[in-house]
């Protein structure tokens, strides 16, 4: 569970200054902050992310630095429990939060008159973000799969393991090579794979390292909302609206060809708990725009933004009936469909025949695949 955010700013005259901290009760040890800062500026001092373990504060810190070259070098520190790693929330979310905070900070710097309000907004945003991160710890399996797909590291790991089983060392090597960066916490990255039961870690006699076997696979895609289509086929909620809806759905899927870009978009939507909650809501029935349920603390504006984002991404469709009432339909459901990696059988055979796979590893992977077949 994240402890909070501590945002510091580097100034020539005062050095490292704490700008904002949330919650207010969180303690700030400047020495620790300096340690983080040093981690960032060691080398070229470029913008980027570091992960630091603070023994004194009994915390782990995921820190984003805007760079010494930036106008206002900010350091946004997400304070985590010792043993917690940012990867558990997914790379994308943290990046997104960091970027939004940076945007707020830049606005504050640019607009001193509204600084107070903007700071309040920023604090509210940080508060919401912390709440979001808390919720990210309890994602559904489908969201976890989307999380794997949306992260570059996890997606690359998935691609590597779709080829054949690898030892951890091998995987790390390939991963670093492909992403062109150091990977220090592979076990944390593999965590969603383990939790979603996509892989099995096992040891094979004669092998020096733990091997990772893919035992299940998944595909991110859009799918027609089953219930809504069924209701529309029964002319619900209104024949005209239903017909329009069906036409929209059919038109969309007539032209739909899944691709990675679209998949990444829908994956990022899926891993956002707030958005995902609405998608889950819209799966059951269409809602009049005015009657969309609001969560605690949510404003009409925030819902409108959210709806707009969903509409832009062709997740929902707003259809107006004769009386002028706007109905929100789920145009495309977003799903992570898990399936049995049947294709691996031929790959194992091929790799074994070509000498790319040891006999014991091939047998072990086949054992795992036999047991993984859905009962």
């Amino acid at each position, binding site marked *: 569970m994240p402890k909070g955010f501590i945002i510091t700013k580097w100034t020539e005259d005062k050095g490292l200054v704490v700008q904002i901290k949330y919650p207010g009760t969180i303690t700030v040890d400047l020495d620790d902050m300096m340690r983080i800062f040093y981690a960032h500026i060691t080398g070229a001092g470029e913008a980027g992310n570091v992960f630091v373990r603070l023994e004194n504060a009994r915390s782990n810190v995921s820190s984003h630095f805007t760079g010494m070259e930036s106008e206002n070098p900010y350091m946004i520190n997400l304070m985590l429990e010792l043993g917690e790693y940012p990867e558990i929330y997914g790379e994308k979310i943290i990046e997104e939060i960091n970027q939004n905070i940076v945007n707020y900070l830049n606005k504050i710097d640019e607009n001193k008159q509204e600084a107070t309000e903007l700071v309040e907004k920023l604090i509210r945003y940080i508060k919401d973000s912390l709440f979001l991160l808390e919720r990210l710890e309890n994602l559904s399996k489908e969201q976890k799969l989307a999380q794997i797909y949306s992260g570059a590291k996890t997606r690359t790991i998935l691609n590597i393991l*779709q080829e054949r089983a690898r030892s951890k060392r091998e995987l790390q090597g390939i991963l670093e090579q492909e992403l062109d960066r150091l990977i220090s916490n592979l076990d944390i990255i593999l965590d969603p794979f383990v939790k979603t039961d996509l892989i099995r870690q096992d040891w094979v006699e004669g092998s020096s390292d733990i091997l990772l076997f893919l035992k299940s*696979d998944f*595909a991110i*895609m859009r*799918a*027609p909302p*089953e219930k809504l*289509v069924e209701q529309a*086929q029964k002319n619900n909620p209104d024949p005209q609206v239903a*017909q329009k809806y*069906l*036409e929209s*759905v*059919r*038109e969309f*899927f*007539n032209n*739909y060809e*899944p691709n990675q870009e679209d998949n990444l978009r829908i994956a990022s939507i899926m891993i956002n708990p707030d958005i995902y909650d609405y998608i889950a809501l819209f799966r059951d029935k269409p809602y009049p725009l005015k009657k969309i349920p609001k969560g605690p603390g949510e404003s009409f504006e925030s819902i409108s933004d959210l709806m707009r984002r969903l509409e832009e991404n062709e997740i929902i469709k707003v259809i107006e009936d004769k009386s002028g009432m706007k109905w929100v339909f789920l145009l495309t459901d977003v*799903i992570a*469909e898990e*399936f*049995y*990696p*049947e*294709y691996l*059988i*031929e790959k*194992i*055979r*091929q790799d*074994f*025949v070509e000498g790319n796979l040891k*006999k014991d590893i*091939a*047998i072990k992977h*086949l*054992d795992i*695949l*036999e047991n993984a*077949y*859905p009962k």
Partner: protein
Amino acid sequence: MKLKKKNTKYTLIGCLLLIIISSFMLKSFLLTVSVHKMENININPSDALTFNKQWVNNSNFDSDDFWFNETNGDFSDVKTTYENNEANYVILGSEGNYIFYEEPPLNDGSWIKKYNPDFPYYPDIALINQTGMCVSHYWDEGADQSVSVNWDKNVTLPTNISDYEITSASIKAVVNGSVHVPSYQPYSDGIEAGNDLGTNTTQYATGDYARFYVLISDINKNNVYEIAYNQTTNLGQDSPEIATMGDTTMLSISEESLIFFLSSVLSSDFQNFTITLGMRIWCEDNYPQDSDWWKLLVIKSVNLTFSYEKKIDKETSISWNQDCESITKDISIENYLSFRVDKAILNFSYKSVPLWPENSPNSEFRIILNGQIHRVKIELKNVGESWETANLDVAYLINDDVNISIQLYIADTFRLNNIVQVSIDNMTLDITYTVFTEDPKPTDWRPIIYALIGVIGTLIIGFVTYQTYFKYPPVVRKVRKLRKKIAKGKTPRSLKKIKDRKIITKNIQEKQIMDIAPKENENPTLIK
């Protein structure tokens, strides 16, 4: 989902195969232990089956169907008849008699005059006329001192009596004669006879005499028998004078001898024989100048009578037979092992009309089964004229075949002058037998054990096949097969029908989109 359905399909096929194989085995088992229903069937605790059945067909002789006859010995002595719903043994007794009587012997040419081969000189006169057979002769020291004449007549009996026996006979022939009596020298012409010896004669031995006789012989005269005669002893005696001999019956041989001689002359030709009537005259030379005058000697009549009866030959037999169904043919139980005849009772009624003749005390009914004579015999002399019933246990004579023969056996040669009819009726043969189907053991469990082994074997094979193969979906089977090959170090061939990742994801997507296809009541849309 689809794979699960396939898995279920293979499981169902496996189960169906098991049920079919098991059903066949169960059916086979039920067929093995099934027993055909039969009349009077009793199932003993030992599993042996006991049957009781009346075996004789047409036992009441409603017709002569199923029955056949067999005769041995003299076929003319016996025959079978079927009448009044009874089967009869008929003993063909009969009788007859023959009378040869001529008075006087007929002068119709049937009598042939012939020489007496021992005295081949005819008398002066020998002829047949209204008086009879007449002879007259005069001798005066000539060569015709001893003369004789025979008349032969061949007679034919109305019946061939080869199979008959003469039971009584008699012969009667009447003669008379007249002679010149005075006896003196020379040439008195008188007959010297009786007490003329020593009185009026100088030489005398036998005196003069005439001999009348009746002979019988076979046609070829190989056997000639004198059956009656009369030889004068005092005809021509001077004192007291006996000049004539009135009608005198010839002396005949005893009846017993006559029967014997008749039988003899009829032994070669059983219907024809010859009767000879004859006279012989002896003129003894009683004086140096002797002459004898036999005025007239006559055979006036002859009467030969005899009776005969049918001769029934010993060892003649006649039977009523029926070849019944064998016991094995009667058994319709499959896979029977053996059978045992527990009881077999033969019943039948019999009578004799008239009573069986006493002169055949040893004749009997013989009950023959399958060629073997039953130890109990029914003596015909004890058979009455009313129905009696025989009740015999014949089980020891039955092995498998049931061939019945009720034989009337004639054990004596005897005469029978009338027909005797012995009848039988209401013949039944009740056989009780036990059939052992396999073994006298209480129950043969082998079929059950075999069936159970078969079923268990099939179930085990089915279970093992299911556990090692059919239990797994086709994809998993491929995994297992590949693993086995790799484990054995073999080079596995390329796996066909394995979908690559793109096809799998494409299939998932297509399946999702299929759900939005327009329904029948909808307008067609732009679906691909």
